[in-house]
């Protein structure tokens, strides 16, 4: 493990024996570009397509101390049939819960195609010994999680122990077995886009299938510019290695309008190949109903009462 650390795969540029290039990010220009893309005007058919896609990409999430089997069952029902009044509305991609509730979600979702994602590795702080984190991951996988959302050790990253972060990701990936690994960077704690870029590369080099912005427990959570920054890393990695890494902005995305802005940024950065739930997810809890409301508006021309949409 420590031998591969010197030049992790994705950090290396092929050909010519060039030095690996981390790359830099200019904050002003990055935010300007994100702001420009947020002004794209999406109407009619494009909007319906975008709204349905947003539902199919959603990781419907509950991560509260107060979560109960009842809450998770109700949310799972919603995940499978977001709009009981309209069977043409697709299911969401996954539900995302704590490890202790994975088995409940697993049973509730049986046969539906909706995935079970579980946070692990001492979520949300990541401040636990590696053994404990790995046990956390294995427990979630054993209970039936299809996807693991781990957090990186920001303390290690910010104190310069990047190798430590890398080794943890490698170890967690191994513990995941067949489960897909999403690596949460908690961008709100990293401070700069340069750090976000570096952390993204470390996570990808360590074996992440997805990189994810936030736990939802820290503000700011997902933003358009930080998502653009991470998508640009994914694009560079794809250019250099052919590896297709997924992206998951999470936290703070509450409206259909925001979701569409993210999809515009995604499409203009990575193109149509990434417009799929296996390469892009929204981590959200309250977003779904606004998307349903807007979708109904597009189809009927009328804004319905929020009471018409279930709150599970």
């Amino acid at each position: 493990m420590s031998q591969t650390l010197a030049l992790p795969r994705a950090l290396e540029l092929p050909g010519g024996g060039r030095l690996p290039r981390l790359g830099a990010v200019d904050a002003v220009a990055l935010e300007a570009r994100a702001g420009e893309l947020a002004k794209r005007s999406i109407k009619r058919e494009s909007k319906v397509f975008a709204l349905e896609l947003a539902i199919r990409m959603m990781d419907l999430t509950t991560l509260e101390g107060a979560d109960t089997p009842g809450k998770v069952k109700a949310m799972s029902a919603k995940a499978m049939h977001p709009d009981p009044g309209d069977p043409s509305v697709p299911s969401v991609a996954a539900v995302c819960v704590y490890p202790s509730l994975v088995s409940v979600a697993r049973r509730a979702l049986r046969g539906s195609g909706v995935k079970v994602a579980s946070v692990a590795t001492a979520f949300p702080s990541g401040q636990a010994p590696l053994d404990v984190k790995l046990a956390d991951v294995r427990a979630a996988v054993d209970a039936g999680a299809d996807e693991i959302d781990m957090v990186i050790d920001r303390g290690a990253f910010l104190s310069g122990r990047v190798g430590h972060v890398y080794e943890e990701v490698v170890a967690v990936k191994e513990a995941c077995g067949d489960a897909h690994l999403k690596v949460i960077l908690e961008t709100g704690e990293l401070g700069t886009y340069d750090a976000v870029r570096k952390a993204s590369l470390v996570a990808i080099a360590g074996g992440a299938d997805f990189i994810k912005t936030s736990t939802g427990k820290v503000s700011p959570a997902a933003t358009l510019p930080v998502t653009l920054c991470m998508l640009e890393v994914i694009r560079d990695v794809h250019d250099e290695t052919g590896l297709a890494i997924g992206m998951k902005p999470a936290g703070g995305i509450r409206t259909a309008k925001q979701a569409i802005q993210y999809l515009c940024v995604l499409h203009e950065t990575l193109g149509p190949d990434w417009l799929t739930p296996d390469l892009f997810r929204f981590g959200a809890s309250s977003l779904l109903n606004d998307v349903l409301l807007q979708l109904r508006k597009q189809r009927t021309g009328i804004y319905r009462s929020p009471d018409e949409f279930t709150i599970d």
Partner: protein
Amino acid sequence: MGAVEKSRKDVLPAGSWDYASSLEGRDIVSFEERYGLFIGGEQVSPRSRSWFTTVSPSTEEPLAEVAQAGAKDVALAVGAAQEAFAPWSSWRPAERAKVLFRIARILQERARELAVAESLDGGKPIKESRDVDLPLAAAHFFYYAGWADKLEYAFPGRRPRPIGVAAQIVPWNFPLLMLAWKIAPALACGNTVVLKPAETTPLTALLFADVCRQAEVPPGVVNIVTGDGSTGAHLVRSEGIGKVAFTGSTEVGKAIQRELAGRDISLTLELGGKAANIVFEDCALDQAVEGIVNGIYFNQGHVCCAGSRLLVQESIHDQLVRKLKRRMSTLRVGDPLDKNTDVGAINSKAQLDRITELVQAGTDEGAELYQPPCRLPEKGWWFAPTVFTNVAQSHRIAQEEIFGPVLSVLTFRTPDEAVEKANNTMYGLSAGIWTEKGSRILWMADRLRAGVVWGNTFNRFDPASPFGGYKESGFGREGGRHGLEAYLRFE
């Protein structure tokens, strides 16, 4: 993963995610059938009795008839400005400031109307006229309104006085913004003006005449004469003017300077450019690509300070060009009134011919051309975003101003070589430097002979920042405190 495979199938084929057209309503602007000249606060028919039609470059549809001002018309306009000068220049400066503030406010209130008019008459995308031209035009009036009663502080001990009648000739690339750059400082300093908009884009200047009426600008303080180059020539030759300010081609700028030789008339020229956008290997690459795109495809490349020469450090050339080409393929060329349009129409047939001719020369000289696949509308004048690689310093496309969406890529190895190549041009209007190293930006800026040097950005404008050229890009500065100096004499 089963669900993943299923969702793969659901993905629509490439291209199905397309922005539905989102047109800005054009009802907000109504053009008159015919516009006379704006002289002495009135719309008057031209003595020349001749008119011409201004068309929309994106559809070739006629928009309005406009007066072709002849020698007599120009003389009348200059006369009106002369008559208005004495009272206007003796107004209390704070009262002059109020007039400018009113203009700025009215420009903001009528921003949508003026933006639509600008895009219709000039062909630029609505997102640019809406987000750049109009806000900046209003900002210029706000900025110079603030200076009107503080001229003594701008030039302590030098007793600034207005010059008299300013003859101002503006180009077609930023019609209303260039009008603002010219008129705002002139009025703030107590001058009166005769302004000639470009032949192909007279409409926003004529709408501005109405803004002047609304803002209660005294009659004769602002006069607008429309017409072709001959109108400009009459204006420059006029007796009674004290100042000429011209923005446009280097060729015409030289002719004006010859014309004014030996006359006691102060002159400022803002002419062509062939700016170098210099990209170092340590830069933030994706943001540099954005800057390069903004530098050359903004306003279809009809920008005198456009970053039309890309100087890229050889070590990142391939990677950068790959990123650039991909980014170019996402540029949306089309209807200027569509809010999702990035690149609009070429301003005129004549300009399209010139671009086409120079691009042909580039191919003939052996440079490698790339244009992203894009459908250009049938009617109107269009040119796809273009990049040339394998360009040598001696190629025409590396030397001559194309004034279109055409980028030439050259390489360098060291900072010294970058400076040498960047300066190796007859122009010197602007330059851009892309590096994460602050000290290198300063080192380069010291050595680049260009009026404006941008660091890690491009095509940024602010009324407080002076703008102008070196060498054949002209002289004099517009904007900022420096911009006042062009409209003052000192006792």
